[in-house]
Each structure stands twice: as structure tokens, then as C-alpha cells.
């Protein structure tokens, strides 16, 4: 495989990690959604590139799904939700952005530490893809737990899923990738619908202990 192809793949995968960091960095709602659109775009691009260099046409479908669903439809839907539910434009974070970024760096380091020795035999392409995918996954989780805001948590989850798609395509010749991505899209669609249906404005983690008592039938 020619080095250029590798470099491109490397560029795209790395770019994904970078965008994940941008997601972590964002503290405005609209900016976050746009950022996520970018995230999805990068994923679809890298998947498409994988399809090209692996000569696996079915991956194009995955790329298309990623592009349409996550780069276009969902961001639009999220924008509408934000407008309709009148969600705050600022994102409420648990710890400061700075600490979050630091933690993110640590996570990336960790994932590389874990991945590189393990996937040594699996070819450089897979190696990079998996390392980056794991970082994206961890960053997404970090985002989910460091943001109090429902929409940003949903976005965090979707970025996890992008990372997984990256990994799946990185695994050379893996069957059922398409089906899996479809299944995932359904999952995400449901989440978004849920946010919309249940009118979850700010947060779906109720911090009010008394409310939880009442919810959980645990009054003595």
C-alpha cells in the first residue's frame, strides 16, 4: 500500500481525535452542534477513504449513512430541539474546560499506550485506526460525564459511535459493518427522539435527591 494512502488515512483519523478535542473545548451549544457535524464529516471521509484503499465498496454505504444521518440530519434536528425547547446556549460543565482537556490528553496517551503494543502484529493502518478510535471513544465518554447538558451528552455518545465506526472500518474486511452502523443509527435516532419526546430540557440526570426518592418508591 503506498505511503500516501497511509498518510491520508492517518491524517483523517488524527483529525477525528482533534475534532473530539474541539468538542471538549466547546462551551456554546450551537458551536458544539456544528462541531459535531464536522466530526461526522471527518468520519465519513475517513470511512470513504478506507473503502477506497481497502477496495471495499460496501463501506461507502457506511460513509454515506454517516454523512447523511450524522453530519446533516441530526445536527439540524438538534438545532431545532435547541430552539423549540429553549435550551440554554451555554453548556454547564462539571469541571473546568482546562481540566477536561488535560484529562483528555491523558486518555489519548493511555489509549496509545494500550493499543500500540497490542496491535503490533495487525498492520500499521489498523494500528493507527484502533489507537485513534479508542481515544475518540474515551474522549466521548469523558464528554458525557463532564457535561451536565442533555444535548451535549447525546453528542458525546454520538462521537463515541463515530469512533467505533472508525475502528470497524479499520478492521480490515470485517463483515456486517454496514448492518452495525445501521443499528447504531437507529439507536442514536431513538436517543434524539427521546430527548425531544420527553422534553428533557437541561439535564436527564436529576440532581434533586428528593425527586429521586419520590421517583423510586423508596420513601420508608
Amino acid at each position: 500500500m503506498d505511503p500516501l494512502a497511509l498518510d491520508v488515512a492517518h491524517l483523517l483519523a488524527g483529525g477525528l481525535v482533534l475534532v473530539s478535542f474541539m468538542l471538549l473545548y466547546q462551551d456554546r451549544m450551537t458551536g458544539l452542534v456544528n462541531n459535531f457535524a464536522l466530526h461526522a464529516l471527518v468520519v465519513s471521509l475517513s470511512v470513504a477513504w478506507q473503502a477506497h484503499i481497502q477496495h471495499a465498496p460496501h463501506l461507502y454505504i457506511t460513509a454515506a449513512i454517516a454523512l447523511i444521518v450524522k453530519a446533516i440530519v441530526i445536527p439540524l434536528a438538534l438545532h431545532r430541539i435547541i430552539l423549540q425547547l429553549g435550551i440554554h446556549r451555554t453548556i454547564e460543565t462539571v469541571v473546568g474546560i482546562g481540566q477536561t482537556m488535560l484529562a483528555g490528553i491523558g486518555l489519548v496517551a493511555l489509549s496509545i499506550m494500550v493499543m500500540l503494543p497490542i496491535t503490533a502484529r495487525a498492520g500499521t493502518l489498523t494500528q493507527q485506526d484502533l489507537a485513534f478510535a479508542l481515544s475518540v471513544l474515551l474522549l466521548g465518554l469523558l464528554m458525557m460525564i463532564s457535561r451536565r447538558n442533555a444535548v451535549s451528552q447525546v453528542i458525546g455518545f454520538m462521537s463515541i459511535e463515530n469512533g467505533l465506526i472508525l475502528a470497524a472500518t479499520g478492521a480490515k474486511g470485517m463483515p456486517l459493518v454496514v448492518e452495525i452502523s445501521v443499528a447504531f443509527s437507529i439507536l442514536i435516532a431513538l436517543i434524539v427522539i427521546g430527548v425531544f419526546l420527553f422534553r428533557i430540557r437541561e439535564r436527564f440526570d436529576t440532581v434533586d435527591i428528593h425527586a429521586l426518592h419520590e421517583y423510586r418508591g423508596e420513601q420508608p
Partner: protein
Amino acid sequence: MTEAGSFFVDAVLVIPALSAALLAVLPDDRLTARLNVLAALLTFLAATVLFFERPAPGHYLIVDDLNVVFIVLSTFVGFTTSVFSGSYIAHELETGRLTPVYLRFYHAMYQTLMFGMNLALLSNNVGLMWVAIELATLTTVLMVGIYRTPAALEAAWKYFLLGSVGIALALFGTILVYLAAHSVVGEGLDAMAWNVLVRRAPEFDPALLNLAFLFLLLGYGTKVGLVPLHAWLPDAHAEGPTPISAVLSGLLLNVALFAVLRFKSVMAANPGAFAPGPLMVSLGLLSVVFASFMLYRRHDIKRMFGYSSIEHMGIVTFAFGMGGPLANFAGLLHMTLHSLTKSAIFYCVGHIAQVKGTQHMPDIRGLTVSHPALGWGLVFGVAAIAGLPPMGLFMTEFLIVTTTFARHPLLAIVLGLALLVAFGALLLRLNGLAFGDPRGGRAPARASFVPVVAHFALVLVAGIWLPPALTAWFQHVAGLLR
């Protein structure tokens, strides 16, 4: 006779799928309830044939010693639960907690859930199994939220999010397994087929397997409800319709644990891979200890038994972690009997909550006086779940504790004391619920006790006599699991 077998395998999957589609469109609720039962019954019958007719493993589906028992078990519990849900739903319609529209949705989802679980059990493909388990999860999420009370919605959300994250982790693990396999087996479906994986596992890259198993254990462990990934489980059990609680405890947890077992057998076959034992032992023990203490402060009866499910999943995980022919055998048997017992307990609990009009335990007293059948059913169930003879769980706990104590005394002592603590909590509640002067509604329960009696009879018989065939399968699997 394999083609006959494959026909029945397809039947086990097709019947629920078709009936799901059918039930989604049929309007009349009386009919749908019966249809639901009928479909479940047919599925069960088709599954029982698999005891005798096994198809050759295909690319997507397989029947082997490990899953043949669980597929029959899950279809059986699915059938009995559908019978129970018939009488349960009728009451819900009268009280107006469910509208016919939601009922249609409920039945469709029920069959979809069955389809998902059967697929997960029968699948010979890691990816397919992943998809199936996700499907099952989604359907249960929707059913947990079906009452649309704030509590139900919150429970559904919690379940949904934690479940989704778990699913994501599991997928990553699956991908890693494929990676480990495809460098040996070559690309394509073979690299994801169980029988191939287990056969070729010794040649896999152990490092990849280790990482993969870590993700798989955490991912599917979330579904199993292992501490600290358990948070969704008690609320999902408490807030959903009781038939769903029964299916969750009885089947879905088993299916998730079954997935973990599949991967453990792969790990076990690879000499280079680290032994997953310590990891599973610590997670299992943590779950047992945590759940047994959590039982004490519970006031909601269904949530309490949800925690008891966590405890028992912990026991099973612990047993498989300990490994060895006896402990593995005990673990498999414990999975089987626990799903039978716990689902039967939930049948009783469902009717109790209906006749008493509450799930709040302090408001329920003296059941053996006001509703003898329900009360004594509950007593029997709690005795069985606590591992008292002559019920079957005694055998498994006997094997687990004795074999563990001979190898790691400290672990066994901790486990035993935790079991004792849990028993203390259950018995405390049982004293309040079943005995003393009756309190709460006295209306007679219009319930069909067939499911309860059937389950308890099986549990009782298993405690005294196990069929040799079952023993043989389990022992073979126990050997595979190391």
C-alpha cells in the same frame, strides 16, 4: 436429521418475528393476548425439538451444548411469562394503566424481544449476536418506559444510556476479537463464527484477546448488571410492567452473561491470554457483597428482587471466575435455576402488587392469611432464591462455596457471609410480607398460577434429581470453560 433441525431453528426465530409484525397491526386486545401466548408456545415447542435434532452449525446460526439448554429455557420462560402477562395485562387494562394502543405496542415489543434473545442465543456470529442483544435492549427500554410515569421515564432513560454505552464498549471488543481472528482465520464471516473462533483460538494474538475481553466484560457486564455497572437494573425492574421485570431478570441478564461465557470459552482456549478468572471473581464478589447490603434499605418489592438478581448474577460470575469443572457446572446450573425461580417470584410479586394496589412493602402484610396461594408462593420463592433445600439453588451454592473454600478460603468466607447477609434481608422482608396480621387489599387474586407452579415444580425437581442429559451437556461446557 440436520435439515429438520435447521428448520426448527428457523422456526424459533421466524415465529416471534412474524407474530411481532402481526401483533403490531391487530386491534383487539383479548385476541392479541391469546395470540401472544400461542406464538410463545409454538416457539417453545419448536425449541424443545432442538434437544433431539441439532443442525450443523451455519455461518449465522448454531446449536451446541452451551446454548441448547438456554434457548429452550428462554423460550419456556417466554411462554410462561406470556401466560402470566395475559392475566396481568387484563388487570392493567381494567385499572386503565394501559390503553389498548399501548397494549398492541406491548405485545409487538414482547415478541420482538423474544426474537432478539433467541437470535442472540442461536447466533454463530459475534457481530450478529451484538446486533441481537442491542435489539433486545432497545425493546426492553421501550417497555420499561411504557407506563410513562416520571419514575418509569427516568428508569427507561437510565437504562437506555447506560445500556447504550455498554453496547458501544461491547462493539469495540467485538471488533478487537475480529482483528485477533482475521489474521489467523482470514477475512470474512469465518473470523466471527463461534465454532471457528473456539477451534482456532490457540493461535490468536493473546494481547488482542485480553483487551477485547476487557471491553466485552465491561460492555456485556453492563447488561448483566455487575457492580459498578448495575445502576440501571433495579429501577428498570421496579418501574416497568412486571412481565418485563420477569423477562429481564429471567432471560436478558442470562443472555448477556451467555455472551460473556462465549468469549470466556475463547479466552480459555488460548494459552497465552490472561486468565479472566480474577477479573470475574472480583466483579462477581463485589456485586454479591454490594447487592446483599443494598437489600436492607429497600421498600419497593420489585426493586428489592432486582437487587437480588444482581446478587445472583454476581454469584454466577464468581463461579465462572473460579473455574474448574465443579464451579463452572454450578454456575451454569445456577443461571438456569435462577431464571426459573426469579421469574416465578416476579409472577407472584406482580399479582401481589395488583391485589394490594402497591409495591411499597411496609403496606403489605400477612399475605399467607389474606392470599394463601400468593403468600406461600412468595415464601417458597424466597426460600428457593436463598438457596434452601429442597430447592435446586442449594446444590449450586453448595458446590460453589465448598469448592471455593478448598482453594481460596478467604473468598469463600466472604461469599458465604455475603449470602448470609442477603438472606437476612430477604427473610426480614418476607416476615413482614407473608406473616402477621393482614394489611392492604383483600380482593381475591384473579391469576393463573400455572406458570408459578410449573417453575417451582421444575426448581424443586432440579434440587432433587437432575436429568443425565442436562448434566452431560453442562459438564461438557464446564470442561470447555476451564
